[in-house]
């Protein structure tokens, strides 16, 4: 129950577009759709190594870096504190290893939550209004990204339940969702039985995990979305981002809005018109993602 937005720059080899700035401008236009929490996920040029971002419970001090690195069982290095938590390099990409690492960290440091992982993905989330995301988020550059304004429905309001959600344990997958997945409970039980660990009680978290599993099995994003359409029940308009671009899916009865503008250079997506016109100009031709529609845009 929320506002969502996305931006993709298609200019070849342009890795330093003002993605954070653009997403925050769009988020400001959608603020009225949810003020419980806000967040953006930005994709920068891929680094050589993958980073894990962990959010730390508000008010609690970070332990000594070596204590965290020790908890990483040799997989963590280059720990850097950042607003609300830390990031560190992970010397593994395999889902099993990453899943075990994040679950282990969360167990050892209660309240800590792994919020992003990958070579290009970086996520900033905050409780409250989008303006609280601050300059760190605003200054992020890259090729594309997605944003979320949350109106909490059934699960808690805290950074771990804010969106975008990382599609854990898979690298570089993020999702921003408006709606409610009504078969979340059973889906989650089945995924937990297969070894997945969840960071929240928020139904939206499962979407990126469902898609991530299909991508990891070798499926393309478009096919993964068609399959996901048959797996999910309930109301949804969502954006899923990978290193390559952004995909979208809307539920069969079009309960939640999703609009887009596409030009040769850019694709912008949002729940409502004004966010699109703000960044694409008043003359932009706005189209609707229709019921049941799957669409994928790749960066250049």
């Amino acid at each position, binding site marked *: 129950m929320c506002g969502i937005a996305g931006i993709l720059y298609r200019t070849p080899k342009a890795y330093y577009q003002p993605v954070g700035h653009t997403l925050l401008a769009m988020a400001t236009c959608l603020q009225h759709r949810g003020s419980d929490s806000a967040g953006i996920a930005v994709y920068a040029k891929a680094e050589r190594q993958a980073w894990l971002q962990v959010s730390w419970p508000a008010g609690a001090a970070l332990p000594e870096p070596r204590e965290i690195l020790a908890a990483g069982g040799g997989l963590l290095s280059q720990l850097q504190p950042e607003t609300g938590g830390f990031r560190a390099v992970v010397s593994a990409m395999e889902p099993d290893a990453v899943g075990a690492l994040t679950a282990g960290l969360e167990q050892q440091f209660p309240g800590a939550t792994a919020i992003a992982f990958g070579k290009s993905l970086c996520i900033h989330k905050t409780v409250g209004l989008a303006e609280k995301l601050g300059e760190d988020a605003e200054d992020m550059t890259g090729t594309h990204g997605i944003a979320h304004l949350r109106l909490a429905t059934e699960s808690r309001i805290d950074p771990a339940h804010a969106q975008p959600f990382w599609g854990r344990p898979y690298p570089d997958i993020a999702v921003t969702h408006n709606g409610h997945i009504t078969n979340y409970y059973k889906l989650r039980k089945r995924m937990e039985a297969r070894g997945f660990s969840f960071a929240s009680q928020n139904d939206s978290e499962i979407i990126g995990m469902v898609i991530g599993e299909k991508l990891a099995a070798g499926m393309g994003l478009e096919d993964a979305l068609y399959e996901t359409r048959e797996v999910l029940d309930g109301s949804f308009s969502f954006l899923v981002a990978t290193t390559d671009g952004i995909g979208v899916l809307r539920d069969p009865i079009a309960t939640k809005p999703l609009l887009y503008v596409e030009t040769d250079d850019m694709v912008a997506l949002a729940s409502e018109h004004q966010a699109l016109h703000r960044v694409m100009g008043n003359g932009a031709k*706005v189209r*609707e993602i229709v019921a049941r529609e799957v669409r994928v845009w790749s960066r250049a």
Partner: protein
Amino acid sequence: MTTTIIDCEVRTTREINLALREAALEQTPVVLRNPDCRHNLAVGVTTPLSVQIDGHVGYYCGGLCDGVDIRVTGDAGWGLAENLMGGRIAITGSAGSAAGATMRGGTVIVGGDAGARCGIAMKGGALIIGGSVGVLSAFMMQKGVLIICGDAGEGLGDSLYEGKIYVRGKIDSLGSDAVIVEQTAEDAAMLESALADAGIHAAASEFQKIVSGKKLYNFSTKEKEIWKTAL
């Protein structure tokens, strides 16, 4: 006659709508500039008023109105002209979901496409869409006329009670108890006049007509097929 020009950028929605009410009292036409997709513009105006909106509007533009003449050069969000009683609301661009929802009179014209549930629970009036409409349009339509110059999404006219739907393009699927019938000469005359009024060039003969099969009027075990999902 003087025209009141309102720059939305420097006014709250409250101030804009109050200014519209004042203009309605004085019978002064109004031009709204820089609407910037604002929600709830020109709602609840129940006395004659002419409003020109230069730009895109948000949700419920012209909702709960009677006797207005609203023209929008741009797109609209959800619930355009919802529950309109009388008058005319026309936009040049596209409309979001539920355009003309529960309208009971007057004319609504959308130059471009309309989203899902266009004309849902219509109770009268005429809703004319220059482009295509989304899923479940005219769901539970009760009265009135819906004219779709483009294509229609799945479930068109599901469970409609009365009212007439005309579609020029392709219909993805008809809803429960929506049936295609032959056009009459009366239909053709009405269509031609409505299309001319909307400034749309199309011949009445290009449209298919859809009405209620009336099998959902009263429950019957003899109509098992149609009732299996309708209740």
